[in-house]
């Protein structure tokens, strides 16, 4: 039995792998009673993996967890909640199609059942109390969840998590979805929970926020614990260094600020209204990295597909070089536009197909307009670009479904580099891939820019947009809600204001 004095939650030597990727390696963490402990690390460092393990969403490979001195092994989220561990997730955590009250009491409806019939009125009453309890009394419990704004939905989640009076409350990067007033509300709630003697595990990559709120801090890097800091040891530069593990001068995102972007427009969208987009006008210049961001259903993914000709505009038009209309994907590829879908396995590659055939697919007609395509040429093209992108595989005949996410994405990018394109539309190119591949993709984007190619970078990660883009366009409910030039002082908070 470990020393549990003044300790509410303790995890020891937690390991978790996804295939070949080690998300957590021998990770230890302790959360004291009445403590707000921060957990920070880069994307993909294992923060979310650990929080979902603690909340019973995922199983771990090995290790032990203790809660209140007893071994804690959640069988699932419901079991975790019964033990007093409740979590607010990073992604959307409410269920659409049911009312706010039903969301708050999801899985706990039995408390309102009398003679086999659900007493909806009692449930709505209780929901109203729960919402008022967190200072969100303006939300109507009877309302359908999808009618609420993104922020209100987050508040519903908070009400749900707090209704169970958790002993350990896990908050996973929730603040990025909240406006400033929403954040203040959350901070106040956290203080209340802390004063009541419960503990909080707070996950964020906003270092200022962490330093302000947390009592202590645990830092993760590539699944390994790098440091535990007390409040008096907090120092922004040191925290950053511990997170990234190298001097900050090292390359990850771009560092330059290019003020001489060409005025030449290579691809533009004129007042386009299409599925998911309303009256959007976007211009992409030569040599520019244009970031496109917003909340997940704001229309940014549709924007990429419209630019590539996959979704036809109902109104307006998409022009290449100010003259020709982008008709469809075939036309787009012929005219030097490339597109990488967010949905990798279904849309941007064929899993049950060799690396060679995946890479050669768009280039086949260039290799031979008529007649047979030389086997040698195909092999050479695929080998050259697979090597160039450092795809890790035994040979180019290997089927792509055996590759890791990062390697698959490298194959997808190799395919377009082999084809050669002047405009690349990348929809969440670093989604779900390891840090090393991410860095390689950022490097690639930078190199493409240097060669005068234009890139549309659609991303859900604000840091990525800020770090890579010359200009950022933000969307909200299908409309363009803001535009930012690249500058030193650009912060996530500024972007978020335009997103919500």
């Amino acid at each position: 039995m470990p020393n549990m004095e003044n300790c509410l939650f303790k995890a020891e030597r937690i390991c978790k792998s996804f295939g070949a990727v080690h998300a957590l390696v021998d990770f230890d963490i302790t959360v004291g009673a009445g403590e707000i402990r921060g957990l920070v690390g880069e994307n993909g460092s294992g923060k979310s993996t650990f929080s979902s393990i603690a909340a019973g969403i995922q199983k771990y490979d090995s290790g032990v967890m203790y809660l209140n001195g007893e071994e804690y092994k959640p069988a699932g989220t419901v079991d975790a909640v019964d033990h007093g561990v409740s979590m607010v997730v990073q992604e959307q955590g409410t269920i659409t199609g049911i009312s706010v009250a039903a969301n708050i009491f999801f899985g706990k409806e039995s408390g309102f059942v009398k003679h086999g019939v659900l007493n909806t009125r009692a449930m709505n009453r209780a929901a109203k109390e729960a919402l008022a309890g967190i200072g969100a009394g303006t939300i109507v419990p009877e309302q359908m969840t999808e009618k609420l704004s993104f922020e209100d939905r987050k508040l519903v989640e908070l009400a749900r998590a707090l209704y169970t009076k958790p002993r350990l409350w896990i908050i996973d990067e929730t603040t990025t979805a909240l406006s400033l007033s929403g954040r203040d509300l959350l901070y106040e709630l956290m203080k209340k929970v802390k004063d009541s003697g419960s503990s909080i595990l707070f996950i964020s990559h906003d270092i200022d926020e962490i330093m302000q709120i947390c009592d202590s801090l645990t830092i993760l890097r590539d699944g390994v614990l790098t440091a535990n800091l007390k409040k008096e040891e907090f120092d922004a530069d040191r925290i950053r260094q511990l997170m990234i593990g190298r001097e900050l001068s090292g390359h990850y995102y771009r560092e330059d600020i290019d003020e001489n972007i060409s005025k030449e427009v290579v691809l533009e969208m004129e007042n386009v209204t299409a599925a998911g987009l309303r009256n959007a006008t976007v211009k992409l210049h030569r040599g520019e990295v244009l970031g496109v961001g917003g909340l997940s259903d704001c229309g940014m993914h549709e924007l990429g597909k419209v630019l590539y000709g996959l979704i036809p505009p109902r109104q307006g038009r998409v022009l290449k070089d100010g003259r020709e209309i982008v008709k469809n994907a075939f036309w787009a590829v012929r005219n030097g536009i490339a597109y990488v879908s967010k949905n990798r396995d279904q849309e941007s590659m064929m899993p049950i197909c060799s690396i060679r055939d995946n890479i050669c697919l768009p280039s086949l007609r260039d290799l031979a307009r008529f007649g047979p395509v030389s086997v040698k040429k195909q092999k050479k093209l695929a080998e050259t670009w697979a090597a160039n992108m450092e795809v890790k595989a035994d040979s180019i005949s290997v089927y792509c479904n055996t590759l890791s996410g990062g390697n698959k994405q490298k194959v997808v990018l190799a395919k377009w580099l082999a084809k050669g394109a002047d405009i690349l539309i990348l929809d969440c190119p670093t989604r779900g891939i390891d840090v090393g591949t991410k860095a390689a993709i950022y490097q690639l984007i930078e190199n493409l820019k240097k060669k005068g190619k234009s890139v549309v970078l659609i991303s859900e990660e604000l840091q990525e947009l800020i770090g890579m883009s010359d200009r950022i366009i933000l969307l909200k409910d299908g409309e363009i809600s803001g535009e930012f030039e690249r500058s030193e002082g650009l912060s996530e908070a500024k972007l978020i204001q335009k997103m919500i």
Partner: protein
Amino acid sequence: MAKESAVTTGKKKVNIREILFNYFSFIGLILVLVLFEILTKGLLLGKRNLINIFNNFFSIGLCAMAYAFIMALGELDLSVGAIVGFSAAMGAFASNINVGLILPAAVLTGLAIGSVSGFAVAKLNVESFIGTLAMSFVVRGMTTWLLNGSTGIPIAMRAFDKNLVKILTFLVVLIVFYFLYEHCAYGKHCRAVGASAEAARQSGIRVERVRFLGFALCGMICGLIGFFTLVRACTASSKTGDAFEFDVLLAVLFGGMPLSGGWVVRFRSAVVGSIAMAILKSGMSLIGIDGLVQQIVQGVILIIAVALSFDRKNAGVIK
């Protein structure tokens, strides 16, 4: 789950499955060959019967080679028999004007009907199974209605029913289609569309056009088969090409083509499967199984072949 466990099992096991998968069609062929060679007491591979087998193989094999493109697309064409019948009928009508028109009439008829099927599948998004089944009813109905019994052509046209002509025709189609399928952009596009239509579209492939051309190509070959069927019998009847679609489907499935389409569909399956199918048909006739029972046997084999090809589809995934 099954996929993961198969990947993690020892390398040797995967190899055995892979070998089975790769050579299943040959194993099936050898089994059929040995079985009927014994049952017919050597008559099967006798000189006279070899010509018989070749005649069976000729039409099934021609069609199966075109069918490979349809299978790669992950589609089916159940109208091939009907197209053969209808093209033969149109060829017979054309002979009333000029015997030189028989071949172009038959081939163009096949191409036209194949194009209609292709249009329905590619542009109207009709499921190919349903679309071509409906098409076969329409075309058969038209054949019966137009022929009103049967129509003959001059007996001199028999001159085209020579083995040399057939062998040369087959070789030309074989070479052209082999390169088109294995080495040209079009064949690879077909497989890409079958593997993932959306990925293919996003790679700049005109998915609708690729699908349309597959059916048009298959229709055209059926027209050619219609011509050779006509010159062999010198008469076109509403029975011409009857149940031919099942012979072909059985041949490609027997040859190891998975119904799912994509990169696992191999061209050689068409040829190997057709030979096995021709031997099967000829062998059954030789040992005196009548037509009705033959259909029963074929139906059973079709089910077994599909069940096995499903398993082999997974084996393909492991690779």
